[in-house]
């Protein structure tokens, strides 16, 4: 006779007790309401601190000052001027650096001659702070857009190379062997097996390179730029206009958030197979 194993077949002994639960934890659940609360709480703390005089306006401007600086930027139309030149430099510089970086990373990943020749160079140049090279870039590419974009290209190129070639190295050899065993051409194997296999690493490299690009953008704009968020922040700093300074910083972090949102969308689209 089949027995219902879900039930006890005999009365439970006296000392029967549930096994202690030791799983759980180490897993993230979404808390969509928390970020706005944290944000609002910090803002409220800041506002009351400034209003009551606990936070001196010399140390940190009141939220109202920052708001006034924003309004100024919008009313005078300077927001768009600064933002457009900065976004242009960031967009062109990052796109070029990332594209060249992926190309170089792929060739380093695929050809052992290129790897032997270029990898030491990449490792040697990666840790050099690119901003130190800015004067050199000014001589090479001029004081205008050229040197600023070159700094960003240079700064994003190296981390992209490294994430791309390690992504290529990480592609399952068995999949490549499978491709060969079905007689796929070399270019098919690269396009359909190696590139998609390296894509997760490439995209997480993009996340890092975009924040490096923003850092370099500001640094480059602090030298010889008339417009741009970096120039705006430098000017505010030298005038001790702290409201404007904070406003500039907030714009930068919004740019960073926007970029990482875009990469998140790209990940969801390109890596939908991961589920």
């Amino acid at each position, binding site marked *: 006779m089949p027995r219902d194993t879900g039930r006890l077949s005999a009365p439970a002994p006296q000392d029967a007790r549930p096994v202690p639960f030791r799983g759980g934890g180490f897993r993230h659940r979404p808390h969509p309401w928390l970020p706005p609360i944290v944000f609002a709480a910090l803002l409220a703390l800041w506002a009351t601190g400034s209003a009551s005089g606990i936070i001196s306006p010399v140390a940190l401007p009141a939220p109202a000052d920052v708001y006034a600086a924003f309004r100024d930027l919008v009313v005078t139309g300077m927001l768009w001027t600064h933002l457009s030149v900065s976004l242009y430099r960031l967009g062109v510089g990052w796109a070029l650096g990332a594209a060249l970086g992926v190309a170089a990373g792929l060739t380093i990943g695929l050809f052992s001659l290129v790897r032997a020749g270029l990898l030491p160079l990449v490792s040697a140049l990666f840790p050099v702070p690119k901003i130190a090279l800015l004067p050199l870039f000014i001589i090479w590419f001029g004081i205008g857009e050229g040197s600023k974009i070159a700094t960003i290209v240079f700064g994003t190129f190296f981390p992209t190379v490294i994430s791309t070639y390690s992504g290529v190295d990480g592609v399952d050899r068995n*999949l490549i*062997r499978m*491709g060969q065993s079905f*007689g796929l051409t070399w270019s098919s194997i690269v396009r359909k097996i190696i590139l998609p*296999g390296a894509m997760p690493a490439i995209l997480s490299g993009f996340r890092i390179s975009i924040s490096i690009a923003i850092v370099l953008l500001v640094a480059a704009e602090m030298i010889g730029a008339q417009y741009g968020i970096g120039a705006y922040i430098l000017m505010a700093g030298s005038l001790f206009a702290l409201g404007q300074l904070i406003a500039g910083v907030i714009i930068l972090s919004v740019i960073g958030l926007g970029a990482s949102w875009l990469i998140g969308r790209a990940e969801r689209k390109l890596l939908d*197979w991961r*589920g």
Partner: protein
Amino acid sequence: MRLLLNGITHSYGPTEVLRDVSFTVEDAEIVCIIGPSGCGKSTLLRFLGGLEKPDGGAVLMSGNAPEGSLNPLTYVFQDFALLPWRTVEGNISLVLEDHGISGGAARAVIDGVLARTKLSDFRKAWPRQLSGGMKQRVAIARALAVRPAVMLMDEPLSALDSQTRELLMDDFLDLWQRERFSSVYVTHNLSEAVRLGHRIVVLSRRPGQVREIIEIDMPLEDRPHRTAELEPIRQKLWDMLRDEARAADRELTDAP
């Protein structure tokens, strides 16, 4: 198409893996290879499909592949080797694209192989959504899509539970009855070997040498209900493998 192995010898660095292995695979014949772990079975299979070259000896093919065969020597891997970024359908079309088969022609081939492997409902599924048995069926469907002359299978069922293994073995035999491909089938499982093999090549411990080739003269379709007659063969294989494993063990303990 026939495959002829002629004195295959190979070493990886100081480790001699295979020594003078010779046998043939006839047209429409299933040859099972068994041998202790590490004796070079997977290595031998890589030589058979031209994925690697042996130090000595040669693998020759003779006769023509069947009409329309796109990839005469085709593998089915133990770990399935499906691209996780392609759906079931995409994994099969992968091996057709390079032969210029796309659009309607590709769809017809894919429909055909999915029907033959009972996967028609899973066309659009991602590999991560499939069970191990289904993944291996996709890999077999992909192999069938290129109409192989010889199927090279490295422990294709060993990642699966025994029920699934039984079912897939039946499916594999059905396919073989229809398509009559040749196959070289590496396995650890002696029941699989006596169920599927026209001939069974027993390799010795490393360096792998042909210890014995056993011919089973019973039609494949009769084997499920004549298991009693197969049992002595299975027992003999078992004894041989146990001897090899023992000897290998002794060599290990005697080593300084």
